[in-house]
């Protein structure tokens, strides 16, 4: 072999490798997906950040310097300390304290748990409900479809905050009602997405094949069509989780969300707001930054997922 590489054979080899690649790991959609996903450094970084946030929330009791819900551990003498200052008993509060002497770092770690739980929980329930509605509408067609889709249009034409206000005005505050409001706000988006992708899947040959085999309808819808709609739904779900977290924070900020005994990030920000005009920037600033990093990292992952999973989808 000479040292010179023939550009043509080089290109050939590369294209051969490209053709061979899917066969090399055929059946391994996951590996294929991972390889594509890791191409974007930004998305991988965002995923790492988001995973750390989730881990920090899960292990909050271990990581947090104090339990912010345990009134015995709070000392009113430590109230409104600036970040990095030492408390009455000698502990250092890296992010400062709120008016009741609660360590803000611990507050944020525990608050993340509530925010993530409410946000992700309601987004997932909304995903299940909305997807089911969308699939049924797409497969049933006719009057059922018209009715369900009209409902979806109605829901989507209404500003989210108004729907939430209505629900919370009628039912009152509390974690459960906030989740209900989030689910009602978000289900329609899943329904529309599920229907759109199910409509295009319906005309495929494999559905026809399944119908020829006289498989039961529910089986065709949930075992054949649904798995093929998953990519689009996963993308929507990722972005909806971020918006659910942001929305929960907004509702809690307005005082309509989670109870004061178990503050989410939004409520922490709202509590800090009262002291901000007096110059205590940290009580609103740091929970807000935590919220921001969470939302932006999820959105970055979601944005890249969209490119990887469904290049045809409109931006």
């Amino acid at each position, binding site marked *: 072999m000479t040292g010179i590489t023939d550009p043509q054979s080089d290109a050939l080899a590369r294209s051969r490798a490209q053709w061979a690649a899917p066969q090399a790991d055929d059946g391994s959609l996951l590996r294929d997906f991972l390889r594509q996903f890791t191409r974007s450094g930004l998305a991988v970084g965002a995923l790492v950040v988001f995973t750390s946030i989730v881990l920090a929330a899960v292990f909050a009791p271990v990581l947090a310097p104090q339990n912010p819900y345990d009134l015995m551990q709070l000392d009113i003498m430590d109230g409104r300390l600036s970040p990095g200052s030492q408390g009455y008993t000698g502990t250092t509060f890296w992010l400062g304290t709120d008016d009741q002497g609660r360590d803000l770092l611990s507050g944020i770690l525990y608050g993340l748990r509530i925010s993530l739980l409410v946000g992700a929980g309601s987004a997932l329930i909304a995903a299940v409900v909305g997807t089911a509605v969308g699939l049924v509408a797409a497969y049933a067609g006719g009057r059922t479809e018209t009715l369900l889709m009209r409902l979806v249009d109605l829901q989507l034409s209404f*500003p989210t*905050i*108004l729907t939430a*206000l*209505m629900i*919370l*005005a*009628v*039912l009152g505050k509390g974690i459960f009602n906030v989740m209900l409001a989030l689910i009602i706000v978000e289900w329609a988006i899943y329904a529309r997405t599920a229907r759109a992708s199910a409509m295009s899947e319906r005309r495929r040959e494999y559905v026809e094949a399944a119908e020829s085999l006289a498989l039961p309808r529910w089986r065709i819808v949930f075992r054949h069509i649904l798995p093929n709609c998953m990519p689009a739904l996963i993308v929507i779900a990722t972005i909806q989780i*971020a918006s659910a977290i*942001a929305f929960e*924070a*907004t509702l809690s*900020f*307005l*005082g*309509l969300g989670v109870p004061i005994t178990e503050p989410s990030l*939004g409520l922490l*920000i709202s509590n800090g*707001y009262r002291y*901000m*005009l007096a*110059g205590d*920037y940290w009580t*609103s*600033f740091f929970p*807000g930054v935590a*919220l*921001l990093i969470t*939302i*932006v990292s999820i*959105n970055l992952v979601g944005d890249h997922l969209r490119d990887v999973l469904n290049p045809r989808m409109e931006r």
Partner: protein
Amino acid sequence: MITWLIRRLFQAALVLLSMTVLVFIGVNVIGNPVDIMISPEATQDVRQRAIEALGFDQPLWRQYLTFMGNALQGDIGNSYVYNQPAFDIILQRLPATLELALVALFLSVVIGIPLGLYAGLYPDNLLSKAIMAFSILGFSLPTFWVGLMMIMVFTVMLGWLPSIGRGETVEVLGMRWSFLTWDGIQHLILPALNLSLYKISMVMRLTRAGVRETISKDFVKFARAKGLSPRRIILVHVLKNIMIPVVTVIGLGFGGTIAFAVVTESVFAWPGMGKLIIDSINVLDRPMIVAYLMMIVIIFVTINLIVDLIYTTLDPRVRLETQE
């Protein structure tokens, strides 16, 4: 045109009617008004008399008809807190919210369209990339936190702008407006900017996408070949063609802007409808809640109607279709 307008007005009335049913059911059936309006310590006898006096013993459809009959006369009941007709209080607060939303709308147009145009014309420019990055932030940052940070920077740290309330107002046409006094304008800047951030990002993105798409079309090439100045091509030919999606978003979004003013008003203590509804929910002032919801629905229906009208002037094809 007239037939079309009548048909649209009829549709609007229908939407309004179905919304009253929804609101009525929501407030009177899901939530039990009896529990709220009558003290739990009241004796059975007092309770029964109160139920009769308030008409809660009537069948639901009759209650609804009474409610509608009163509502048509502008009477939704007295606010429990202010002890005045709830609708009057909403009307008093409406100008503040409208002013805020209109200024926000204005900002989103005068900031969003030029920036979007620039980003669309020079997509590889560094400034364009900065504009796009800003728009992503505008989408994902929660409004209330941005508002808080604005207060922190511009009021607390720099001391440039006030952040609480409406400032000095002037009465014109029986309503109080802030934008006519210098003090009022200063008070308006931060809340209006806060409310418009999301809209600015949206308008920017739409304009950019529209410009990118339109600029390569044949009629633009033709205009260029005809020797028209680039300024005229962009400001007349391109801009006119991208106005439809922009008008849709701005116009239909105006209802959303009014609804989302709830958040901005709470942050900046702006004495509008949004702040009122939050306070009313917190004290369970039901007539107030009903009045607010009805008001929002009316605003919504009106906006839809106006946007449709603007459509027909912007795009003659729309008019042709509806006249069949």
